[in-house]
């Protein structure tokens, strides 16, 4: 009983609580940035893979296929390790930022690059699914109206493709939030790593001078709860969007 009270005392300690909440903020920030940039790079990759089929541009298509397949078939952790060694870091980041030390800022940049590279490949496949769902007649119609290929892409194909994949992209946010926990392997920035670090110094905060099994349950349980609340509300949103779309399609067919 004493141990459980100690663990609860630890988590209600304002400093510890603020430390964890900052981790939550970083988790969300990293994931949102990774998905936004992933959508940008992923769209380019998907378009290149789908439409660069003429003999002149074939090489780009192969590059894009290679990129997507390589990243899809290797673990994220490998890319985090690779980026730690090989990713160049601009010197402007060599300073303290948002309460992180300069070393941590650099780690954050490098690991975020790995996450973005990885997420781009996944989102590329999602966007490709969206592009394939747009009927080919749209191209011909666009050409007939005098649009150039770039204009057709920007004004006709992409808007329709993205409309179809909004739910899938949102569930990719959930996946990325979960994937961002892989950063805990190398740096102490986001939620997962902060909780793990707190566990190793729990004896200082629970007033008992030992780390007990109740600390594990309280700390990791609390982290589970936070992840669950964020991801579950997102997945409810995804489900609601899917249901609405299904209904809209039914109206279109029957009406």
């Amino acid at each position: 009983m004493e141990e459980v009270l100690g663990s609860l005392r630890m988590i209600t300690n304002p400093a510890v609580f603020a430390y964890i909440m900052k981790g939550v903020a970083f988790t969300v920030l990293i994931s949102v940035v990774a998905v936004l940039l992933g959508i940008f790079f992923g769209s380019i990759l998907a378009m290149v893979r789908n439409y660069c089929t003429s003999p002149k541009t074939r090489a780009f298509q192969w590059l894009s296929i290679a990129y997507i397949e390589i990243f899809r078939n290797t673990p994220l952790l490998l890319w985090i390790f690779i980026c730690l060694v090989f990713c160049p870091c601009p010197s402007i980041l060599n300073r303290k930022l948002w309460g992180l030390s300069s070393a941590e800022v650099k780690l954050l940049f490098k690991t975020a690059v790995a996450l973005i590279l990885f997420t781009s490949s996944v989102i590329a496949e999602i966007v490709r699914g969206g592009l394939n769902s747009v009927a080919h007649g749209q191209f011909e119609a666009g050409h007939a109206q005098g649009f150039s290929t770039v204009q057709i892409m920007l004004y006709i194909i992409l808007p329709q493709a993205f409309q179809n994949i909004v739910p899938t992209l949102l569930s990719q946010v959930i996946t990325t939030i979960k994937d961002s926990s892989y950063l805990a392997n190398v740096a102490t920035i986001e939620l997962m790593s902060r909780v793990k670090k707190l566990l190793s110094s729990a004896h200082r905060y629970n007033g008992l001078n030992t780390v007990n099994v109740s600390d594990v349950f309280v700390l990791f349980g609390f982290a589970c709860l936070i992840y669950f609340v964020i991801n579950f509300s997102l997945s409810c949103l995804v489900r609601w969007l899917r249901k609405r779309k299904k209904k809209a399609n039914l109206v279109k067919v029957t009406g």
Partner: protein
Amino acid sequence: MAGLFSPEAWNKIWIYRDTFFLGLKNTAVTALFALALALVIGIFFGLLATSGKKPLAALARVYVEVIQNTPVLLQMCFLYYALAFSNRSIGIINTGILTLGIYHGAYMAEVVRTGIESISRGQFEAAHSQGFGYIGTMYHIILPQSIKIILPPMVNQVVNLIKNTSCLYIVGGADLISVTYSFVTGENTGGAYAPAYLISGLLFFIVCCPLSSLASLWENSLKKRDVRSGKAQKSLERMA
């Protein structure tokens, strides 16, 4: 590029090649047993979710939502440290098998559920009226029809499972990624970053790429067949 073209670095890899094979073996063993566990859990909860009994379906729902909405890394740490601090440690590989089995079990359950739900209700009723029991219906009527819907996403889950063995690293695992990392940072072996990461990535790619290509080819051919049978259906309707 930290030794991508240096013969010494490659030589180092060659000398320590058994390390990589050991890592690959550990990854394979973890993935295989975790897959078996995930299949058992997935079929069990998938059947619960489609049993039509509210409390059982709710139980399956809760399991799937809780597991799918928390990171596998957190679950791994949770299980490992909870066992370690209560002096009941079962070893890293076993913890990995258990965690990955439970985590991917939730995904398998969803795959199985969607597969069974895609079969129209009438099939169940028809089987029931013909005197099939629950197991008979599932085995003879539902399984043969839903297997083609279930298998492609299941193969994708296997690929994810293999990739997720890398989360053993956080508890000091012995899988391929952890072994590679300790190889490149080790005192005697360190420094050969590029070749070591290349080899380890290549090993993953060789295992995962055929599986994921198979899954997407399969899915595409199913989709095409659906389109074709849909067209056939429509032309039949027009003729009638």
